[in-house]
């Protein structure tokens, strides 16, 4: 690029885009601190009463606990299954390697609505009654491709000569995985598990179909929107937003730290797909 004047148009577009992105979130956060129950201007002073109300509510607490259980189980399950799948497929010499990898990726393109309906039909067929377990299974299916993508990229970047070297020095396959492969990729894998946690924690559409009698935080927000609208919704949403943003930050930091560690020097964050995942989860 030749250095020259920046187009004023580009700057304007950037600004408009940023305002569209962030203004609603800023307003939501602002009115979560409103002193009155009104959700529109004029703004009549700050208060933390809505946060206090939300944190005291037994329904919110129960929904939050459910969300944490489901997200934790989903994250751990994905970490184990996704790591195994990615390791197996990056080390395989089979001709099915390409098609199988694609099959693991592909569900990322399925709309949540479709997945939700399909899972519901599946559970009914299998005779599984709807519970947090069915939600967890559905979430596993939903977040697996995201985790798999990150894990596969991290494992494929490793130098295969290092694993051969470990075997040459007497390590069997398991010892090689534990002492050579895992130490190089665990930050990225744990980071991707945080991403899985965040995706599950925020998930609404699929959960809506397979939840049964329980509730999760996104479902609670949705159902209270149908009853009354007051700043307590803003408070919950702001808390949710902060929590998932924190998880994404951990994902990115772990990934870039892991990459630095692996290469022994500074490297850029390898998570080109985080923005896509954020967009999808939002």
């Amino acid at each position: 690029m030749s250095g020259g004047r920046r187009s004023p148009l580009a700057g304007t577009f950037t600004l408009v885009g940023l305002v569209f992105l962030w203004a609603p979130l800023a307003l939501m956060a602002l009115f979560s601190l409103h002193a009155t129950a009104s959700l529109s201007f004029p703004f009549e002073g700050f208060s933390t009463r809505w946060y206090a109300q939300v944190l005291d509510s037994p329904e919110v607490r129960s929904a939050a606990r459910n969300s944490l259980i489901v997200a934790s189980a989903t994250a751990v399950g994905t970490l184990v299954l996704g790591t195994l799948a990615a390791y197996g497929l990056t080390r395989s010499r089979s001709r099915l390697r390409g098609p199988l990898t694609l099959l693991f990726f592909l569900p990322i393109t399925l709309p949540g609505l479709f997945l939700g309906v399909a899972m519901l039909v599946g559970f009914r067929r299998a005779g599984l009654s709807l519970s947090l377990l069915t939600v967890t299974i559905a979430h596993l299916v939903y977040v697996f491709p995201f985790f798999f993508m990150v894990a596969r990229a991290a494992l494929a970047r490793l130098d295969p000569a290092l694993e051969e070297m470990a075997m040459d020095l007497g390590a069997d396959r398991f010892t090689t995985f534990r002492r050579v492969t895992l130490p190089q990729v665990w930050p990225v894998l744990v980071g991707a598990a945080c991403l899985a946690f965040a995706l599950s924690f925020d998930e609404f559409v699929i959960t809506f179909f397979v939840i049964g009698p329980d509730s999760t935080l996104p479902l609670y927000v949705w159902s209270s929107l149908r009853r009354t609208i007051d700043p307590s919704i803003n408070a919950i949403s702001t808390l949710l937003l902060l929590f998932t943003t924190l998880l994404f930050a951990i994902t990115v930091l772990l990934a870039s730290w892991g990459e630095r560690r692996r290469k022994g020097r500074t490297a850029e964050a390898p998570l080109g797909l985080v923005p896509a995942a954020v967009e999808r989860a939002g």
Partner: protein
Amino acid sequence: MSEPRVRMEQVSRRFGAVTALDELTLDIPPGELLTLLGPSGCGKTTLLRIIAGFERPSSGRIRIDGADVTSVPANRRPTNLVFQRPTLFPHLDVLGNVAFGMQVARVGKAEQRRKVAEALALVRLEGYERRRSHELSGGQMQRVALARALVNRPAVLLLDEPLSALDLKIRLEMEVELRRVHRETGATFVYVTHDQREAMALSDRIVVMDRGRVEQVGTPAEVYRRPSSVFAASFVGDANVLPVDVLEADATSALVGLGSHRRRVEARDAARGPAWLVLRPEAVRVAGAPADVGGDAPAGLVRDAAFRGTGFTYRIELTGLGVELKAETPPSSVHAVGDRVTVEWDASACWLLPRGGEDEAATPA
């Protein structure tokens, strides 16, 4: 003779339709530094990986100290490998790298430390235990890799072009180091390279390989002076390979005809008929003014002249023969491009190889 350290019995390896190794049989005695030398694709790396246990032969057997290890996986073989590129574990420091094999084998911590210190002293990296791989130069990384392999006292140390990724200056230093380490440890080294100069400088014996077969096995001097084929002659060192006819032959010499010139050369039991005359460039003497000599010395025209420090390298087109001769002369022999010269050589510097119909394909370029 004592039992060979490594014995390969008719080892073949095929990848689909490609034969990488063709019924290769070879013994390596203990303590030898053996080089597998050949162009890329000749099967030398495949053979090394078969000894290491990373590849299985399609047929044939591998024995180490008499034990059949053909189906033993790499992690249970008494071999250690140094790769072409320095491959240190990036998440471990030098100590962790060198001690890796002992940790896997559950050797006590104190012994680990002592042996690592010994191994690092051997490769002249005393006190480097806490360095990480990105703090080391390429040469230092290969030294650590060497220490990491040798610390396990392998029956055979396998080296896959370990110097090819290094700068020329470091490479020459590392050759000296490798010779010293080999002397001090008395270990058996199998060294793969495509660099004939490196092979000559390092080896006790050289195995010249081509297209999955052994062309010749011998000491560097044997392979250089008495190549068994045109391929071996032109791959190991520079060689002029001239088409001649053997006119007379006895047990130790032969009279050959090169065009209209007659030359007596040393040869063993040469057969009459067409042959290749192998002539090393440094054995060729170049003299000026052919009119003064008047003898039977082949005449030629200097086509190219290059100063190489210790003397000149000439390319001389031999008059009436249609061949170009390479000559490496001392600095006192000065000729310009376009000069008419005569060439001469010692009978003892020559070597004859049979030239039959089947060898025509191997005609040197």
